[in-house]
């Protein structure tokens, strides 16, 4: 199926042909990085892999921000409940 999955660049195989080796969950394969040619890809970068192509770099900082956002969204309710629980009006 044509999913997009995260992979880590482990080796630049052929810069002229835009080929790199990525590690996806322990399995290493050569894919094309032609679509990220201008993005300055290096070993250790994470990319989104789809049908043998790197589609985009995965930005670790943004990923962390997203998880942060998720926690904040969930916290609204929890905070409300905590506040309610802490109330003692009389």
């Amino acid at each position, binding site marked *: *199926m*044509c*999913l*997009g999955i*995260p992979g*880590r660049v482990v080796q630049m195989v052929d810069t002229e042909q835009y080929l790199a080796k990525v590690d996806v*969950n322990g399995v290493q394969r050569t*894919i*094309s990085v*032609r*679509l*990220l*040619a*201008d993005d300055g890809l290096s070993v250790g970068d*994470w990319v*989104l892999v*789809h*049908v*043998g*192509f790197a*589609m*985009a*770099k*995965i*930005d*670790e900082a*943004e*990923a962390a*921000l*997203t*998880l942060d*956002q*998720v*926690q904040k*969204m*969930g*916290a*609204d*309710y*929890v905070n*409300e409940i905590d506040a309610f629980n802490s109330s003692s009006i009389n």
Partner: protein
Amino acid sequence: MKFVDEFRDPAAARALVRSITELAGDDEFKFMEVCGGHTHTIYRHGIEHLLPQSVELVHGPGCPVCVIPMGRVDDAMFLAEQPNVIFTTFGDMMRVPGSRGNLIEAKARGADVRFVYSPLDALKVALDNPDKQVVFFAVGFETTAPSTAVTLVRARQLGVTNFSIFCNHVTIVPPIKAILESPDLRLSGFLGPGHVSTVVGLRPYRFVPEVYGKPMVVAGFEPLDILASVHMLLQQIRDGRCEVENQYIRVVRPEGNTQALKLMSETFALRPHFEWRGLGFISQSALRIHPDYADFDAEERFSMPGVRVADPKACQCGEVLKGVIKPWECKVFGTACTPETPIGTCMVSPEGACAAYYNFGRLHRETALLVGRRPE
């Protein structure tokens, strides 16, 4: 797995669901997703069952396999059955039924049909088999089209003469517009396709809030991404905002992938119109090979039957694809039409709403109905 596991944290999901329930309150919301990957995640992780009854997720025409009409599958079978042809295809297309069976059956009858993971694999088959004609069945939205584009450029670079593409790429904006124009649906907003957006960026969706007044949030594919996106949609509505937002910031840039778009503009042209299963003919909704690359166009190299075939009468894929009915509301769901004996494409592709529901959602819903918990 990094970038996967942390976006599946159950505690965070539960907290998000509670926030969503608060935000939704007593109103009712219907959000449509237009990406097969989202349909799959939603069913696989039971997200519809996590969400409160006030929030309904509707599956739209986001599976590029599901929208290929039977006539085009027949054309693919025709190519596969040509002597001296090696027909290469993604896995999901192999069991899609045409009017004379599917590609796997053609293979069983002696056609050389091969599964490939990537169009580059198909090109390699051509290089390894210079005495055969190799055809690649190109399907997919803008996520996949750039890969076909790069393959075309490479094929030209190498001077390959025995390789061609049967192009069935489709574009995402026209079906969204068709859905918004359809009188059948009253949607509250959209979950935008995450991976298509890595290529096209956010700008193509601006017409959704600006012309049709519906919010859109481009969403990632893990459960927390989808729940967060639902939260963002509800927040927009509560705040009185209406815009395109990006939840999938770790991968989607607002400008998309300009290199991919440039390669696509060099190798593809827009078809004036294309038939979508269930939606009929939609103008400027599909790609064909650019005249500059005509020597790689299978429709130029071979003379295709090109016959239009109507869907079987029992098939209600069209209504499922538009989100008008749910999979279980289709008359033949689970009886005549199952993953083993599919009538329509919604059941064949793992990303189709019916297959996803059959494989993941069915038992949960049937149990819930049995204990009288959730009305139909």
